[in-house]
């Protein structure tokens, strides 16, 4: 399960929605990866030194290890990735971060926007009953159909063009979704809503955070989040998202 940097090969690339791409990569890192972990992906443009942290959407052992990332074009780096074709090389470092803890309880998986992808591998590996709550801007959705075989899927859209009009918490309430544990990844306002909902309903919640990163391995302290209590490693109220996270018990962190 050791981290490593390697040059992997693109198996396939597909556009899923506006500015959302899915890429399968052939890499031995896949065998070590667990849901909630991420990769650092490096650009070929040498003016850009820092890797892009991208969550792992799927990973399995087939053909010596295959790993899928689903990502949004957020700038020139991810734009470059979106142009890679089958057989192209891609430099990656991974697997990074802790991943979601697998709990043996009825689960609610909550993904918002580009926070949805890590929920797919998690949905596959959680064997119990689960509801998957997905939040999108509008009906230009992605990955939602792939979740159908793993549980009940509930959708919220900002503009109401599909599912509940509103956010993922609105959808949870409207559909009376319940469970013993919540797993969530998405924008900070969404995670704040999830944390509050979990507290109000006394449900354990694990949330995956993001922040601008440099090293990706816990050395540079670039990507910290605020912790509720003094952190054992940092000795201050900061946790390293890349190394202590990206998944935290919602009670551990302040958003």
């Amino acid at each position: 399960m050791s981290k490593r940097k390697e040059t992997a090969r693109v198996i396939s690339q597909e556009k899923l929605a506006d500015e959302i791409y899915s890429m399968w990569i052939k890499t031995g890192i896949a065998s070590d990866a667990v849901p909630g972990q991420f990769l650092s992906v490096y650009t070929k443009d040498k003016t850009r030194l820092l890797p892009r942290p991208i969550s792992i959407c799927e990973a399995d052992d087939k053909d010596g290890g295959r790993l899928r990332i689903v990502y949004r074009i957020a700038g020139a780096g991810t734009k470059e990735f979106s142009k890679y074709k089958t057989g192209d090389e891609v430099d990656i470092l991974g697997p990074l971060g802790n991943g979601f803890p697998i709990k043996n309880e009825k689960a609610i998986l909550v993904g918002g926007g580009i926070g949805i992808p890590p929920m797919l591998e998690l949905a596959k590996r959680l064997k119990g009953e689960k509801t998957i709550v997905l939040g999108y801007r509008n009906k230009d959705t992605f990955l939602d159909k792939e979740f159908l075989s793993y549980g009940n899927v509930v959708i919220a859209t900002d503009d109401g063009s599909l599912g509940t009009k509103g956010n993922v918490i609105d959808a949870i309430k409207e559909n009376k979704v319940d469970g013993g544990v919540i797993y969530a990844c998405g924008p900070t306002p969404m995670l704040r809503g999830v944390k509050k909902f979990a507290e109000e309903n006394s449900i354990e919640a694990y949330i995956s955070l993001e922040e601008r990163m440099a090293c990706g391995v816990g050395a540079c302290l670039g990507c910290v989040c605020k912790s509720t209590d003094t952190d054992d490693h940092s000795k201050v109220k900061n946790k390293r998202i890349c190394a202590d996270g990206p998944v935290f018990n919602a009670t551990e962190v302040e958003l």
Partner: protein
Amino acid sequence: MSDAVMTVNIAGVEFKNPVMVGSGTFGSGMEYSEFVDLNKLGAVVTKGVANVPWLGNPTPRVVETCGGMLNAIGLQNPGIDTFIERDLEFLKDYDTKVIVNVCGKTVEDYLEVVERLSDKAVDMLEINVSCPNVKEGAIAFGQKADALFNITEQIKKHAAQPVIMKLSPNVTDIAEMAKAAEAAGADAISLINTLTAMKIDIHKRTFALANKTGGLSGPAIKPVAVRMVYQAAQAVKIPVIGMGGIANAEDALEFIMAGATAVAVGAMNFHNPYTTQEVIDGIHDYMIKYGVKDIRELTGCVKQV
């Protein structure tokens, strides 16, 4: 490697090769020990440590620029107690030299850390008077020659280990700063720390970093760093440790030829965690290729075109 001697000596400390890491880019080596064999490094230079834990700056703390990056970590650190118990304890198992980077807000802060380290397994101290990302102390000591002289003199009185003063590039005259450190008794100087810089998000119309400014590092700044190392090495007799954007052996050799006795790999550790090892191997290859028997033949060897 007997046909290419890479050992260097700084203030009586012998390093197996001239390749170290830049403080703050390598933690205390723990995280990078998954990628490189720390035993192979000339030295591990730890992230800056203060007398008490520091929270550092709000996020975003890092952002990319052309050929470089800005950071404004703000010297977050767990404080000297945890550092001694955990980080120094970890490093004891490795056959490499340990240089502890020391930061503080007041002279007393620095002295407290220096004294706490006096009986510890530490080979050298590097005094950070040049971090651009903390408001108090730090860079205030590093941008004026008299302030630098004073803090260097005080630290030398209290330090058990040889002292490296880490210089800021954000000055008009680097030679003057180097001379001030030397005159006050510094055993060596290291440079450059980061260049104060800024990035603006034109779509949000905000600073890219919460701290407004950050320190620029990476290959973008290498030419400025080489120039300053050259000027500093010309100005003083004490050894110079050169750094600033080193990505490969060619870069490291530029610093050595400019006058650096040793070099440090900084931001490029983030780009490629194997950089240090590649630099060590590449310098060795260069020495073999050109029949250089001792790395010291290259130190400061640059000549007019």
